């Protein structure tokens, strides 16, 4: 009573947060209990029907996995469903009453403890998000199932159902059967319980191939004599690598089911004369396969998350750098540049009043003009403001007008695209031109920029010495990073002695620095 009150408080909060308004809380709870009991009993009967589970021992005891998943995902308050399911599943005629009751208590405690421990130990997100969480989930399932095995074996011993000499092997079989049940079904439930999958035709075809490969290789593995069980692993790895959590948990189930099926039909590498040995070998195979695939898929997920974060922080850094350049450019423009320009105006006004000092004023003004030009080029290199006002085509015209090497504008975009894309394209062109002039000793340069479909294409070709390389810290490497962060493609062809061609395609119409 105390427990249900405590757990009831928890479900009130859950109810207010979610769909409690549609279905009354009590009804929803009873519905959940019914589903749990149904799944519990159903999964037990699958075991009975395919003869991999009996009243005492099982190769894999599925109800444990079902119940842990349900209590972990749905809430510990559904524990009575485990009791009801267990009462319906247990054969009370086969065991002394006290032993049967002890087993049921052990089964309940096992499930509640495992589900509680997963909730407690996996603090953030899903148990399949990171390797640490996966490890804690495995520990939780191992500890919970060890409790059931211990309670069960002790009760069997106390009820004189088994002899002392068998304690070790029965405990091991019990524990591995329950542990495998949890290890197969809990990740499956965690991976699949939210129905938001979308597979396009190609992925669906590949997924089908994975399943075919797992089934086919399992058939080969379990039909030939000798230890060929490991040949299934490449297919399992394929599923885990390419289809993340859902793929991994699914191929684990399929692989386990086929291993059990064959062992029960006395074929394959685990079909020994001793049933105990067969069961142990199959259990170990399933546990090892499941653990390996889970580790693999979690590592893949971690790697993808890290790659994503890395990409985001790179975009963030570029964006910050870009903002900083704009700030510096604006400060230069608004400050020193305007003052020098104003000074020039005053100088010219003064010169008119002092015809005697005309030569001095002239020289002062030409010095001033040089300073203004240098400052303007500096500011322009930092951030080209002409882009914002007049667009890429005119900005490229200004580059052409300033170029010290003959520069031909083969094609210019007739339409404006979003500012960030124009800025990226502008940097590509100015950097490529500066390379062509500085390093490649080009005698001519051709620039082409065109909006084709939804993309801005930029080409810069020169007749220089070629042999340009994307070394770390080189301008080309920096350009590639800029372009790829903007979601574009970057290609350099630079055969030695035959000029350089930089080809860039940028998706336009969206902000590339959005992160």
């Amino acid at each position, binding site marked *: 009573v105390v427990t249900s009150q405590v757990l009831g408080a928890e479900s009130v909060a859950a109810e207010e947060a979610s769909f409690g308004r549609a279905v009354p809380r009590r009804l929803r709870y009873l519905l959940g209990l019914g589903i749990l009991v149904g799944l519990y009993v159903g999964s037990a009967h699958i075991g009975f029907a395919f003869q991999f589970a009996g009243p005492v021992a099982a190769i894999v005891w599925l109800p444990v996995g079902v119940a842990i998943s349900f209590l972990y995902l749905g809430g510990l308050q559904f524990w009575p469903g485990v009791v009801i399911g267990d009462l319906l599943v247990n054969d009370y005629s086969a065991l002394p009453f006290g032993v049967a009751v002890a087993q049921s208590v052990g089964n309940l405690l096992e499930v509640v403890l495992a589900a509680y421990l997963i909730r407690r130990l996996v603090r953030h997100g899903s148990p399949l998000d990171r390797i640490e969480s996966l490890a804690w989930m495995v520990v939780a399932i191992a500890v919970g199932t060890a409790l059931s095995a211990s309670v069960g074996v002790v009760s069997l011993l106390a009820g004189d159902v088994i002899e002392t000499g068998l304690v070790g092997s029965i405990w091991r079989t019990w524990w591995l059967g329950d542990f495998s049940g949890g290890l197969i079904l809990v990740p499956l439930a965690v991976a699949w319980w939210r129905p938001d999958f979308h597979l396009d035709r190609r992925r669906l075809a590949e997924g089908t191939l994975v399943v075919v490969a797992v089934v086919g290789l399992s058939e080969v593995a379990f039909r030939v004599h000798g230890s060929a069980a490991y040949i299934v692993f490449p297919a399992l790895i394929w599923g885990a690598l390419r289809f993340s959590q859902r793929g991994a948990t699914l191929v684990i189930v399929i692989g386990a089911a086929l291993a059990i099926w064959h062992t029960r039909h006395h074929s394959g590498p685990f079909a020994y004369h001793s049933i105990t040995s067969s069961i142990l070998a199959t259990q170990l195979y399933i546990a090892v396969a499941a653990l390996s695939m889970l580790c693999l898929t979690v590592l893949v997920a971690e790697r993808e998350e890290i790659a994503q974060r890395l990409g985001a922080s790179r975009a963030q850094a570029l964006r910050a750098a870009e903002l900083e350049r704009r700030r510096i450019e604006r400060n230069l423009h*608004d400050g020193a540049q305007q003052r020098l*320009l104003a000074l020039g*105006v005053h100088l*010219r006004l003064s010169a*008119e009043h002092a015809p005697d000092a005309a030569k001095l004023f002239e020289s002062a003004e030409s010095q001033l003009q040089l300073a203004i030009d240098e400052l303007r080029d500096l500011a322009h290199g930092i951030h080209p403001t*002409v882009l914002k*006002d*007049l667009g890429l085509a005119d900005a490229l015209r200004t580059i052409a007008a300033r170029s010290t090497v003959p520069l031909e504008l083969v094609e210019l975009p007739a339409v404006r695209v979003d500012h960030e894309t124009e800025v990226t394209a502008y940097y590509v062109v100015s950097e490529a031109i500066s390379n062509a002039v500085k390093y490649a000793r080009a005698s001519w340069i051709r620039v082409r920029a065109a909006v084709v479909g939804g993309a801005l294409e930029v080409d810069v070709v020169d007749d220089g010495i070629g042999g340009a390389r994307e070394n770390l810290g080189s301008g080309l490497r920096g350009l590639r990073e800029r372009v790829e962060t903007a979601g574009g493609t970057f290609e350099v062809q630079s055969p030695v002695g035959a000029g350089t061609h930089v080809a860039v395609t940028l998706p336009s119409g969206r902000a590339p620095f959005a992160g």
Partner: protein
Amino acid sequence: VTAPSEPVRVLVADDNEAFLEATVRVVDGVSEFVLVGAVRSGEEAVEEADAAAPDMVLLDVRMAGIGGLEAARRIHARRPGVLVVLLTADSALADVVETDGVTVALDKRSLSRAAVAEQWRLHGRR
């Protein structure tokens, strides 16, 4: 038709204090010009162009807000004959601005009494 002796009414707009002051001095220094306003943004220039009825507007291109290019468009929408001289610190920009008789560009580096007077002589009308 205005009498020829009447001075050319000039409005100037620049968001930079130092350069605005320099521009004002240039305008003051041309005898046939009279300064009718000095403002610090494109929006103010549009308003002032309505109020002060200038013949010529010296307009900085790069200003916060609508900027010189947009201000020029708005001024011309209301007063098509006004000569707008776009002042820019970027000579390249001065090269590429489309000049259509009522809009011309002038590099700030070459702003002087003679340069402004010449722009009026070449393009100004009233």
